[in-house]
């Protein structure tokens, strides 16, 4: 019931208001049930929060540009990555060579984008493999619980103690340096962190009521893991993946710099930085500056994006 037809300048006391001033209004039941605003799913909501984070968005834009340049950059360059041109060594940046040339007269611009391909490939592959193994291992360990979990966690604790880069170096010494061995070496111990996170999440979520409801409907274990557990653990997993990428990129550059990664004629940011080590003493700054800039900014972009995702996906943890 609503008040209507109120005369504007009435100053009567409430008891003397005549009845004819009131009318019945039919209540519109469908209108009150209507949703005024489109409902936001978890992902849309997270995206909205991420967009507000300027630094994370800057990182995302940088990474998108980097991917575009890594894919298309070399096509527009008239120079071949590994073609040596000794008369033109150490040319400063110019209209011909945007980023200058290195000790063998190779075009730094072209090599930078080839380096970007390698770094992005290593980073994404490492994250993807860690993700796959980590989800399976951590999912089983957390969901089964009890003795299985205990056993599986002991194995993880032992592997976790192994010094990561030392094991990688050891594997590379034996397997010989190449792109695929780097990825293998990085993931042999790298999945452990992911498995721990997945297990922790699963342990926490599996006791919630909606899982019990699913079980009481007779849902199979694999379906519960796929449909109920994993989607709800995705937040921390995505954050962990975003942070795996820069550490893998760092590891590749580090190993290439030591001479254990991508081998010399091929371009990788680590190889380029290593080549430039001799050149900086003579003041040819550009040979070092460009690979250094791109390694640092790619890692920076992934780090701020990871931080932003963490805030966006898990608002409870926000500080």
């Amino acid at each position: 019931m609503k008040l209507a037809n109120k005369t504007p300048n009435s100053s009567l006391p409430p008891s003397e208001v005549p009845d004819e001033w009131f009318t019945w209004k039919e209540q519109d039941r469908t209108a009150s049930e209507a949703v005024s605003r489109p409902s936001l799913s978890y992902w849309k909501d997270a995206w909205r929060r991420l967009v507000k984070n300027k630094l994370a968005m800057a990182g995302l834009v940088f990474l998108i540009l980097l991917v575009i340049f890594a894919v298309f950059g070399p096509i527009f360059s008239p120079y071949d990555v590994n073609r040596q041109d000794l008369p033109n060594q150490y040319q400063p940046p110019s209209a011909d060579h945007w980023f200058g040339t290195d000790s063998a007269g190779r075009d730094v611009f072209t090599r930078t984008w080839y380096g970007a391909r390698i770094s992005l490939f290593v980073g994404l592959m490492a994250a993807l493999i860690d993700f796959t193994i980590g989800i399976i291992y951590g999912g089983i360990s957390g969901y089964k619980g009890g003795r299985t979990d205990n056993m599986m966690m002991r194995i993880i604790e032992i592997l976790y103690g192994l010094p990561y880069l030392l094991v990688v170096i050891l594997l590379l010494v034996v397997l010989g340096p190449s792109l695929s061995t780097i990825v293998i070496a990085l993931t042999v111990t790298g999945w452990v962190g992911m498995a721990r996170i997945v297990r922790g999440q699963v342990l926490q979520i599996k006791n919630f009521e909606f899982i019990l409801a699913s079980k009481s409907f007779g849902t199979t274990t694999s379906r519960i893991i796929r449909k109920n557990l994993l989607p709800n653990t995705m937040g921390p997993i995505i954050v962990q993946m975003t942070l795996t990428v820069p550490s893998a990129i760092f590891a590749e550059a580090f190993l290439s710099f030591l001479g254990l990664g991508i081998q010399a004629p091929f371009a990788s940011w680590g190889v380029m930085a290593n080549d430039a080590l001799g050149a900086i003493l003579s003041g040819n700054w550009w040979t070092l500056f460009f690979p250094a800039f791109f390694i640092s900014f790619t890692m920076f972009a992934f780090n701020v994006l990871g931080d932003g995702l963490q805030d966006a996906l898990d608002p409870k943890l926000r500080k």
Partner: protein
Amino acid sequence: MLRYILKRLMIMLVTLWIIVTLTFILMVSIPGSPFNSERGTNEAVQANLEAHYNLDEPYIIQYLLYLKSIVTFDFGPSIKQPSQTVNDMLGRGFPISFELGIMTIIVAVISGVTLGVFAALKHNNVIDYLAMGFAVLGISIPNFVLATLLIQQLAVNLEIFPVARWLSPAHMILPITALATGPMAIIARLTRSTMLEVLTQDYIKMARAKGLSPWKIIIKHALKNALLPVVTIMGTLLASILTGTFVIEKIFAVPGMGKYFVESINQRDYPVIMGTTVFYSSFLIIMLFLVDIAYGILDPRIKIHKKGGE
């Protein structure tokens, strides 16, 4: 507590055994003998060499000999420089690397904690943003890139510091800066976030209500509790500083263990690779163990947590 220590000790021993066995398997599985590259050696000489290094024994005997040599801490002679034993190299290189590592940790902890505390106290202030921007940058710039940039700017262009070597305190500033920046940034971020959490606790309000001076509250009540998580990541930081010394020692020509390690990798000098890897790993694994124990002792909550978690 004792049970916890024993459990950690068992895990540590298994990890050590795995790394030792892994190095052995990997070295045995490398195709060819390390003496293949030496031209002009006839078969008799080669056989003698292999006998000298016990390479002609069956694998199981080699493995047992290897285990024995590690337990007695004798890593044998270098193959490429037979006049030197691996122990000689470790004895010469380790003190220098240790010096570099210790000073890096001290610098990283002091500057990282200071930066983190100031960022937390000036939360959402310009200082906070500057400190955290600096920290993310510090995490993102790889140590070898920072090292080369420092050499280029401060040693070559401005000539403030010497370019390389390890002779005087002035020689130490650039390598330590390059190595400490990453860990410092990580410590600063962690200190900031735990400080922010601790500063909202009731006991801080209580301390304020008692009328304690702000600095006393920060140092005695807040920082003491905020530093606990920093202890937990010390193990990981040690590992990253230790592997960082490889490149830093290479770039600055510091005659530490990392230099021998990198050289041995490039020359495929297997006893040196095995020796240094086992030494490094044992050092790190023992450090991780000590960090774990220290954390267990420092944080009384961990016992309750353990009971609740199991």
